[in-house]
């Protein structure tokens, strides 16, 4: 049985900059079930982070705002919520986030203990003492060695991997139903990356929460996610179960992406990698129709005029006129 | 209680309380509160006996002797009785090289003590200035001084004056108390305590009076003098300063243009002092040629050099400066007299209009004294505008000895002039005792000096305005530029008026 913890419908997020409007998230729809890990993959600037921040109501201010669509968490509409309610009832309690850079995501001037205890105090209204005790437990849970000692330490006394654990402890301290991990492993070395992925698996097993895992690393997505949504220029172009997607990518972009990545074990005979021609579009000046059309080898006239909707097709969703 | 204490404000402040160490006129502000001399000048500008009960000049064989009987029963603030020993002690201090006032006792060779109250001053030559300067020997407490030493005396000076020193914060305030055992009950202050605030800024001082923070101020800015006269419950008095706005010209340096009398006269004719008095000083000034009324040998017929820029230019051209001349102009200012800085600048601006171009050096008076004392006189080339006395009240001899005689043989010794003939005339005056003869000679010399514009050019005497509330009874004494504070007390009737002043 799997009910959806999160349902996103036609989410549209715009950034109003001096130079123009960036349609960072463009009609994005997906859902996540309890205990499920949805991978959100796509290259830099494709709108992954903005999607995650839209869910948290933490778009950059004053530029960013949600201009359309709905975000439902356990059936509750979030897109119209005001900041105070968001802070008091959603963030940290229902949804939490592990961010990309462990080196900069902890406040350098507060002790680890007080930072981990902060959400506990906020959402469980505990006293400082009990919150600190609980924080120690949380650190223990994410396998920070000798947590009782470490709570009085400061971020700069921790290594990158350890900080990422602390952040995980902070994010999951109030057992949120949805965890967003925005490239949590990108800044880590591969040997540490494995450790963190193990930890994420463990945390999810314990809590049964949904996990939105944002990454641009196809390998990481493959080894951690249940389903994957591929983003390109602000839109989801394909969503599928992870095995299906890797076995038979349907959208031309997904196909190109998978083919262009070298893999260990498969030696491409000193040969060339497949490469997608052209460059990603300027986010300020997205082309009409399908954003991928200028680089696509299956492109037809229609692609330049209409943007293809995300259509369910045999258990996966694809946004392409040709493949459908 | 409030009636016991009066808070007043001075614009300027003494830097030195030891009368044998003074170098600047403002020092008299404080000295006159605590210390006294043998003679004094009364409000009517008459010389009166003070600490001396009587005195007389005894002339034997060219040498001059002055016999003095000191008043009996005069007490210092610590209760010691004043004796002739104290005068002798003061005399010796005044003779020391570090003294600033040795000029007054230059020709006194000895103070001979006969007993506690009688002494004789021995002079090496006749010197009328000794008398003219009120037998300028101060009553200093010898015993006290020897006990506390130089520094101790600076910290807590005592004298025989009507006020006792209580405390002092330089640049802030001086607190003094009435000396109840003061010998001269006639002029004993009415207040028990006087707090003297030092407020050099005109606006601040005026504000302090208006807000009631102080009840007496000196140097009301001329611009506001008229307004003060109309303030309710306020009395004002205009008192002519004993000083002149004085232009001192360096006529001794080899390359100084002022060696030429025509250039000096050009300076005298270039500036419109009447306009300055009228517009800048709001009439609070008296144009002077040389000496002021009340001075021995004052000549009402000697007219000031008229404002005549064309004449000034012509004189300059004659002297070979048709294209103008550049000089340093030292603007020596004190907060004692009003608007000195800008009047200096005004004068320099007038000079520029006839071709005498000033590079202005702004100096506080004290700074000038401190500037390079390597020679007998502070270094000054060019021209200097400053407040300078010409022997008022009394006699100009000491003053002329200071700035006309080439050796600076007189008060201050800041002479920038050298002319053997004039020197001889000054010398002659120094030994001439008879007042009538002196008056004639002074008149002659003043005329000569005026014609040559020698030894500096007097311009105008500022009129200082004092203001106080009508709850105060105040009678100004000429000592210390009228700030002696001898007769000051509460005025319960609010109808006390100051004694009328002499012209």
């Amino acid at each position, binding site marked *: 049985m799997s009910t959806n913890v999160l349902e996103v419908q036609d989410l549209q997020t715009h950034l109003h900059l001096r130079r123009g409007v960036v349609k960072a998230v463009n009609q994005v729809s997906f859902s996540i079930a309890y205990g499920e890990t949805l991978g959100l993959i796509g*290259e*830099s*600037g494709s709108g992954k982070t903005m999607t995650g921040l839209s869910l948290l109501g933490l778009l950059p201010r004053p530029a960013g705002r949600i201009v359309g669509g709905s975000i439902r968490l356990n059936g509750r509409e979030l897109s119209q919520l005001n900041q105070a309610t968001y802070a008091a009832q959603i963030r940290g309690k229902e949804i939490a986030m592990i961010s990309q850079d462990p080196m900069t995501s902890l406040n350098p001037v507060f002790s680890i203990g007080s930072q981990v205890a902060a959400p506990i105090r906020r959402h469980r209204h505990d006293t400082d003492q009990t919150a600190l005790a609980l924080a120690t437990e949380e650190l223990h849970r994410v396998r920070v060695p000798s947590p009782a000692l470490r709570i009085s330490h400061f971020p700069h006394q921790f*290594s*990158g*991997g*350890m900080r990422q654990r602390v952040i995980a402890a902070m994010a999951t301290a109030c057992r949120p139903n949805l965890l967003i991990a925005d490239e949590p492993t990108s800044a880590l*070395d*591969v*040997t*540490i*990356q*494995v*450790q963190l*992925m*193990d930890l994420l698996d463990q945390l999810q097993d314990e809590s049964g929460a949904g996990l939105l895992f944002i990454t*641009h*690393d*196809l*390998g*990481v*997505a*493959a*080894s*951690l*996610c249940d389903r994957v949504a591929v983003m390109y220029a602000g839109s989801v172009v394909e969503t599928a179960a*992870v*095995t299906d997607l*890797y*076995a038979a990518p349907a959208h031309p972009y997904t196909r*190109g*992406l*998978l083919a*262009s*990545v*070298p*893999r*260990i*074990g498969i*030696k*491409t005979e*000193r040969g*060339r*990698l*497949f*490469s*997608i*021609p052209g*460059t*990603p579009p300027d986010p300020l000046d997205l082309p009409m129709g399908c954003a991928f059309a200028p*680089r696509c080898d299956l492109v037809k006239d229609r692609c330049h005029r209409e943007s293809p909707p995300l259509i369910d097709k045999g258990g996966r969703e694809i946004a392409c006129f040709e493949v459908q | 209680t409030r009636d016991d204490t009066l808070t007043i404000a001075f614009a300027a402040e003494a830097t030195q309380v030891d009368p044998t160490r003074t170098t600047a006129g403002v020092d008299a502000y404080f000295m006159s509160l605590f210390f006294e001399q043998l003679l004094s000048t009364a409000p009517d500008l008459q010389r009166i006996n003070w600490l001396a009960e009587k005195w007389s000049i005894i002339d034997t064989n060219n040498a001059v002797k002055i016999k003095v009987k000191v008043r009996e029963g005069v007490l210092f603030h610590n209760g010691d009785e004043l004796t002739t020993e104290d005068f002798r002690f003061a005399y010796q201090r005044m003779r020391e090289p570090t003294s600033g006032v040795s000029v007054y006792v230059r020709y006194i060779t000895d103070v001979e003590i006969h007993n506690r109250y009688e002494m004789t001053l021995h002079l090496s030559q006749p010197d009328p200035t000794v008398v003219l300067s009120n037998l300028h020997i101060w009553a200093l407490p010898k015993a006290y001084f020897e006990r506390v030493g130089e520094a101790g005396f600076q910290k807590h000076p005592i004298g025989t004056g009507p006020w006792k020193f209580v405390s002092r914060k330089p640049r802030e305030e001086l607190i003094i108390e009435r000396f109840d055992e003061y010998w001269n009950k006639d002029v004993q202050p009415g207040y028990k305590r006087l707090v003297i605030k030092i407020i050099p800024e005109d606006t601040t001082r005026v504000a302090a009076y208006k807000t009631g923070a102080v009840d007496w101020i000196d140097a009301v800015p001329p611009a506001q003098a008229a307004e003060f006269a109309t303030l309710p419950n306020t009395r004002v008095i205009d008192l002519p300063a004993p000083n002149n706005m004085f232009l001192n010209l360096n006529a001794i340096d080899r390359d100084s243009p002022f060696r030429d009398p025509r250039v000096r006269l050009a300076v005298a004719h270039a500036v419109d002092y009447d306009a300055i008095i009228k517009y800048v000083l709001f009439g609070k000034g008296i144009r002077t040629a040389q000496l002021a009324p009340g001075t021995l040998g004052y000549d009402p017929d000697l007219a000031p050099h008229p404002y005549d820029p064309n004449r000034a230019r012509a004189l300059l051209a004659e002297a070979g400066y048709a294209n103008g001349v550049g000089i340093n102009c030292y603007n020596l200012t004190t907060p004692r007299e009003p608007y000195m800085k800008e009047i200096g600048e005004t004068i320099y601006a007038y000079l520029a209009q006839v071709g005498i171009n000033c590079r202005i050096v702004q100096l506080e008076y004290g700074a000038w004294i401190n500037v390079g004392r390597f020679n007998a006189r502070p270094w000054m080339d060019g021209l200097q505008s400053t407040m300078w006395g010409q022997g008022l009240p009394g006699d100009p001899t000491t003053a002329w000895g200071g700035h006309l005689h080439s050796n600076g043989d007189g008060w201050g010794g800041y002479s920038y002039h050298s002319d053997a003939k004039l020197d001889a005339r000054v010398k002659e005056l120094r030994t001439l005792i008879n007042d009538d003869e002196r008056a004639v000679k002074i008149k002659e010399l003043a005329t000569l000096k005026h014609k040559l514009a020698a030894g500096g050019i007097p311009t105008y005497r500022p009129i200082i305005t004092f203001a106080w509330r009508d709850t105060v009874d105040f009678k100004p004494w000429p000592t210390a530029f009228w700030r002696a504070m001898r007769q000051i007390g509460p005025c319960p009737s609010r109808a006390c008026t100051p004694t009328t002043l002499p012209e």
Partner: protein
Amino acid sequence: MLNLRAIKCHFQTNGQIVRAVDGVNLDIVKGETFALVGESGCGKSTLAKIILGLAPITAGSMSFAGEPLIKFNKRFRRRVQVVFQDPYSSLNPRLKVSTILSEPMWAHGFKRDEVTQRLELVMALVGLQTNAGNLYPHEFSGGQRQRIAIARALMLAPELILLDEPISALDVSIRAQILNLLQDLQDELNITYLLIAHDLALVQHASDRVAVMYLGRIVETGPTEKIFASPQHPYTQALISAVPEPDPTIARNSNLIRGEVASAIEPPTGCHFHPRCPHKIDRCTKESPPLVAREQVQVSCWVIGSGDLNVAK
């Protein structure tokens, strides 16, 4: 072609010594792509800087094409060039692209028309339009900038090009383009590459031989195929197995090693890797193991040397 012997490079910062490179031997053969892999901070870039004469050597010697490399003279400068990771800071924002590209040749006193000729040739080689020369760097995308950076490196027709993570700053979909370009250039011009990367898949794809670095030292080196097929050093094994494969059917390898990379300021005694090594023996904590040839690969490990370690996975 390029030989490094016992190269050490220690930095002094705040009174502490950073052992960025701590005794490295390397031999690069003409025409090959030699890859240097290792985790962040292990000294890869420092090694590149040493080869370029941009960082001082604390100890050791280098030779290039048989001649000892003591002074970095103009002749050497022409033969070795570099492409850095960041295409933004590699190009002076105030200069036109043509100036940027010509500068190396001007420095070597080439004539004006020689430079113009070469410029056209090289721009064509890397796939830049001719009018690109009149533009400024900020008018280009990251991928194009990296093409410019490569073009610049090619201007002097070098024999060896150091590639310090040449594609890791680029968009995923662009990386293949640049990688292919580099390979094409090598085939065409017979250039030798020293490729620095931490992306193992890339290394496996693009290099002929590889050296694995750990905390300033090389722990294993040999032909790429050999090493990826049967890594011998425990660290190499862990590194390769930790790379997640873009294939959901392959289960993630659970972690082989624990802990994190130690600091280069106070590296562990003996074998630098011993605190994280699952096979460590006493000796590892005391003496640092030399690189020992085993078949085609060279490994620096006491345990393998004593035969105690079961090499096969």
